[in-house]
Structure formats: C-alpha cells, structure tokens
C-alpha cells in the first residue's frame, strides 16, 4: 500500500512544473543558506507569501526545496569560510575548513554533499515507511495525548538543548505567552491587549522568525565585524569522482551517523546534538582518530550525514502529528494552515496527494539538490565575496519585504525590527530562540488540548498520567525536564566531572 501511494506521489512530484519549482527552490535555498543572517527557517518564512497563490503541493515542494538547499548551503560556508551558517554545521567546520586550507576543499565539499545526500536519503526511506504507521496511531489520539506530545516536544529542548535549562524554559513560556495575545477563540474574550486594537490579531510567528533569526543574526554578525576569508573551492569533476572512490570506505560511519541523525532528529532540537554525537562516535571508532580536527574526510562525512538525516527526520512529526520538530518545519506548518490544509494525522486520509507528493518530492529534491550544488559550488561561494556593506542592508530589506507580505501590514515590519533586537539580546544571553518560535506556533493548539483534557477529566491533571499512551509520553517528558538535574548527579555518582562537553544550542 505504501509503494502504491509513493508511486502516486512521484506522479505529482515529477511533473515538469513541480520539478521546475524544486530547482528554483534549491537554488534560492542554497543562496539563503550561504548568506549570513538567512537560514532555513527565515528563508522559508520570507518566501512563504509567494506560495499563497500556488497549489498546496507545489507550495510545499518549493518550501522544502528551499530547506534542502539551505542545508547544503550551510556546508559550503562551513568548509570554505569556516562560518557555520547553522548550529548543526559547526561540527562540519572542525575538519572541513582545515581540509580547504590544505587545498582539499573540493574533496571536503564533495564528501559533505554526498554524505548529506546519503543521510537525507536514509531518513526519507524511514519516513516513507513510518509516517503512515505513525499517522494511523495518532488518529486514535485524544486531547490528553496531544498535550503530552507537546510537553515532550518542549521538554526535549530543556533536556537535550544543552544550555541553561531555566533560560530554555523561559523562552518556551515567552512563546506561549505571545501566542495567547489577542482573541481567545473559546470564550471570545480579548487577552493581553490592554485596549490596543493593534494587538487584537496577536503576534504572527512568521514575523517573529524573520526578526529573531534574520535581523537578530545580522546584528550579531556585524558586531563580530565579519570578514570573510574564503579559500578556493577547488572543485572539478575529477575531484568529485576521486572522492566518490574513497567514500565507500566510510560505510560504517554513514550507517551509524544516519541512525543517530534520524533518532535524534525527529525530536525537536535534535539536529545539533546529532551532528556532534556523530562526529564524536566517528572519531572514537576511526583508525585515524588523531587526524580528526586536522582535516580528515571522515570528520566531514559524519556530522553532515547526521545533520541531514536529522533535518529530514524533523519533518516526520510535522506531517504525522502536526507538531513541528524544528523552526523551519514550524514555518511549513504555518504554510499548511494558510493553504487551507489541516495539519495532523488526518492529512494522510484527507489529502493523500499532498502528503505523498511531499514525500516523493523529498527524494527528487535531494537528487536535484546534490547535483546542483556539486555543479555550482563556485557560483554559490562567490555570493560571500559580495562586500558586506551591500549584503547587510540587502538582507534587512529582504526581511522587511517578507514581513510585510504576510499580512500587508506596515506594523509587522516594526515588529520584525523589535524581534530582531530581542533575538540579538537573547542570543547573546544564551536564551534559545527555537523553542520560543515553536511555542508561539503551537500555543493555541497546546492550550486547547490542555483545556479539552481538563474538561474531560473535570479539572484533574491526573488525566495525563492515567491514560496509557499519554501517561507514557508524559513520563518521558518529565524525564527530559528533569534531565538537567539528573545528569550532574549521575556523573558525580560515576566519578566523572560535573559538567560534560555540551554542544552549542540551536
């Protein structure tokens, strides 16, 4: 049954129009991934208004292609410029940049793109098989189960995010509070508007994404006085073919990293820990462990495979449960609602052409993506040679256009600037931004799930523990929330130093 549906999906994804959309998406996405300040999440957010007039399947193909492109673009800047565009590209710089410095940039890039492709492919195959099963199970979920999943989502930011757990929690709470601003649909009362009519429609998370990630990131990068010291790409077909001959040697790393990526990735905030974990494992099991950090190809392969596997896996909860695993997936979820689709398990029943078109387009998109980036790396690397005094205002203008287009509202551009300043301050103080955005997106859903659950139980919160599925999920969520407390205690028990090496947060 799955194969039949996938076949249906390929018939949709392989129409010339949708392939064209995919190519445009990958191209834009890679440019977005290369540019400082723009990444998957705000790139997708800025281009979301463009999709309003498209058929939903083509629209999601455009947005996902931008996402794949941005993932590829992150590898280019990490390897050639030592600038990780996204937190999960940090581990790629460890060996990628030294390789590029030694004139092996072409090898590193080929290795990175190929392993991204393999990691992505592995995750897509798993999604093809698991998504319908998960959606089937989720059909039996009631409000308590959905609220428990939300708890789990946010607890993994606290438990696995690696930063200050209080600050992670505060970020989540701010997101939820911003989500409650405006009209309460259940009672029809206005909340937190304090008499301002402008606040009635609430805060749009798309504006928040553009401001927090786009403008905030630009402010951070001008502060650091960014100077791009790029190395030559050194890409040609010979290098690509030669690298492909070496790569099968790392098959163990590919398999291990793909599993790590998928397993970490479908939980929120998983891509970054996945890439670090996979790097650490590769180093541990490698025969050339001492070469890691000095320009070892395997050190590029491991994090890239895991990061892409995780990036794709983040789509799994979005299409099956309607709960995004990353800010980028959250923006796509917002798109789904705007295009008139109801995210969640019913999507598989009501819009099979959309779901399977999307899944099939993941296959085609990644094939197109890897070929395009391999062919056009020098062009993409050129973008970073544009003077900074042009790039900075240009990105601000693009962000402004994207913010205005969402609701045709001038006020949104001001919100974008304000969110930009907030993003800058929060990033410096280590308040994670991803959970804030996710909470803002999921706020209404979480609140109505909570209310409905409490109505079922007549006010008793024990409902989340007594139902078997929600009980298990809630228990897991409580475990993650407690993880920052348990970990130091556990390490002390085993005689290890109190704090381990924590990866940077997303």
């Amino acid at each position, binding site marked *: 049954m799955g194969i039949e549906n996938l076949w249906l999906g390929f018939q949709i994804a392989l129409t010339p129009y949708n392939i064209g959309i995919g190519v445009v998406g990958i191209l834009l996405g890679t440019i977005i991934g290369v540019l400082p300040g723009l990444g998957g999440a705000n790139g997708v957010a800025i281009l979301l*208004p463009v999709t309003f007039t498209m058929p939903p399947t083509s629209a999601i193909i455009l947005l996902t292609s931008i996402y794949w492109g941005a993932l590829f673009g992150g590898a280019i800047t990490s390897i050639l410029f030592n600038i990780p565009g996204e937190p999960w590209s940090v581990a790629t710089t460890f060996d990628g940049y030294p390789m590029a410095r030694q004139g092996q940039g072409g090898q590193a890039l080929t290795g990175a793109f190929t392993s991204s492709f393999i990691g992505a492919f592995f995750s897509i195959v798993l999604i093809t098989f698991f998504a319908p099963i998960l959606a089937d199970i989720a059909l039996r979920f009631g409000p308590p189960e959905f609220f428990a999943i939300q708890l789990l989502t946010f607890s993994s930011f606290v438990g696995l995010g690696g930063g200050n757990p209080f600050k992670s929690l505060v970020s989540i709470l701010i997101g939820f*509070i911003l989500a409650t601003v405006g009209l309460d649909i259940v009672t029809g009362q206005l*909340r937190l508007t304090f008499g301002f009519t402008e606040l009635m429609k609430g805060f749009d998370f798309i504006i928040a994404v553009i401001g927090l990630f786009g403008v905030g990131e630009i402010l951070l990068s001008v502060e650091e006085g960014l100077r791009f010291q790029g190395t030559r790409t050194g890409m040609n077909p010979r290098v690509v073919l030669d690298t492909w001959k070496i790569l099968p040697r790392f098959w163990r790393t590919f398999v291990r990293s793909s599993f790590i990526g998928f397993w970490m990735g479908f939980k929120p905030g998983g891509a970054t820990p996945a890439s670090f974990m996979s790097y650490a494992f590769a180093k541990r099991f490698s025969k050339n462990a001492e070469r890691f950090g000095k320009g070892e190809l395997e050190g590029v392969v491991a994090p890239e495979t895991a990061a892409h596997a995780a990036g794709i896996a983040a789509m799994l909860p979005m299409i099956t449960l309607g709960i995004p695993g990353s800010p980028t997936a959250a923006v796509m979820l917002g798109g789904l609602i705007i295009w008139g689709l109801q995210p969640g398990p019913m999507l598989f029943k009501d819009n099979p052409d959309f779901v399977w078109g999307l899944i099939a387009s993941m296959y085609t998109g990644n094939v197109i993506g890897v070929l395009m980036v391999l062919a056009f790396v020098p062009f993409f690397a050129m973008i970073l040679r544009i003077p900074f005094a042009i790039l900075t205002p240009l990105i*601000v*203008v693009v962000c*402004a256009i994207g913010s205005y287009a969402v609701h045709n509202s001038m006020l949104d*551009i001001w919100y974008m600037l304000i969110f930009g300043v907030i993003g800058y301050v929060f990033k*410096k103080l280590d308040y994670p931004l991803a959970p804030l955005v996710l909470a803002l997106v999921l706020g209404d859903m979480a609140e109505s799930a*909570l209310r409905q659950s409490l109505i079922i139980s007549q006010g008793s919160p024990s409902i989340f523990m007594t139902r078997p599925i929600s009980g298990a999920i809630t228990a897991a969520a409580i475990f993650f929330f407690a993880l920052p407390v348990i970990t130091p205690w556990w390490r002390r028990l085993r005689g290890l130093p109190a704090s381990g090496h924590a990866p940077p947060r997303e």
Partner: protein
Amino acid sequence: MRAADLVTASLLIILGAVVLSDAVRLGFGWGPDGPRSGFFPFWLAVTMIAMCGMILIQAARGASAKSFVTREQLGPVLKVLWPAAAAVALMRPVGLYVASALYLGFYMRWVGHHSWVAVILTALGVPIGCFLVFEKWFLVPMPKGPLEGWLGY
C-alpha cells in the same frame, strides 16, 4: 554579561507580572464550561516569574568579566539599526522601494565607503529587481509611494 542577565530577567519578571494581572482580571479558575480565559496565561506567568527568579539568583551569584557588549561592538550594530528604523519609518510616505534604495545607498556609502557609481547602481538595481520579482512575477504587492503612482503603478 551579569548586568545584562539581571536586567533581562527583571524585565521578564515585570512582563510576567503584567500577564499575571491580566490573567487575574480574566479569571483563572474554573468557569461554567471549563477553564476560564485567564487559566493558561496565569500558569504561564507564574512559571515564568519563578524561572526568572532562578535566573536572577544564578546570575547574581556568578561573576563574569566578559561585558555584554563593548563600545566597539555596539557601534556597527547601531549603524545597522537606526538607518533601518529610519527606512521603515520612510516606507509609509514614500513606499518600500524608494525607502530601500535610500537605505541601501546610505549604508553602502557611509559604512562601506563604496564609490558613488557602485552606490547608485546597487541602490537602484536592487529595488528594481525586487519590484520585478515581487510585483510582477509573484504578484505580492508592497507599500508604494508617490513615485510608483507617478510611474503608473
């Protein structure tokens, strides 16, 4: 860093208190048909105030020599911010495209010290490119001013 941490946490506590007061006004208990409107915000605000309290304690105990932002760092940040704010303010009277052209040109000349030719070419080329892509190709309308009106759009 410590001072910035303390200030941010305190501001967030004030925000929490504002939310709390509105939640109390709305009622946070059990209404005739389930939890009242203020129920969810109430618990969010209470938890947030508690968590910010913990951050305050942590920050007050810890000492950090690193400053939040140095004068050399703040300069470039403000150089991006205030012209951007000015450009956004200009967008209502003159439209987005003209404001963007002025912003791009100003920033390039002032910060980048590019030649006038490069400045004028970029400041004109980028908004025209954006205009073609958004208004013509994707049919997404942007705020327009008298110039666009004079040109017939």
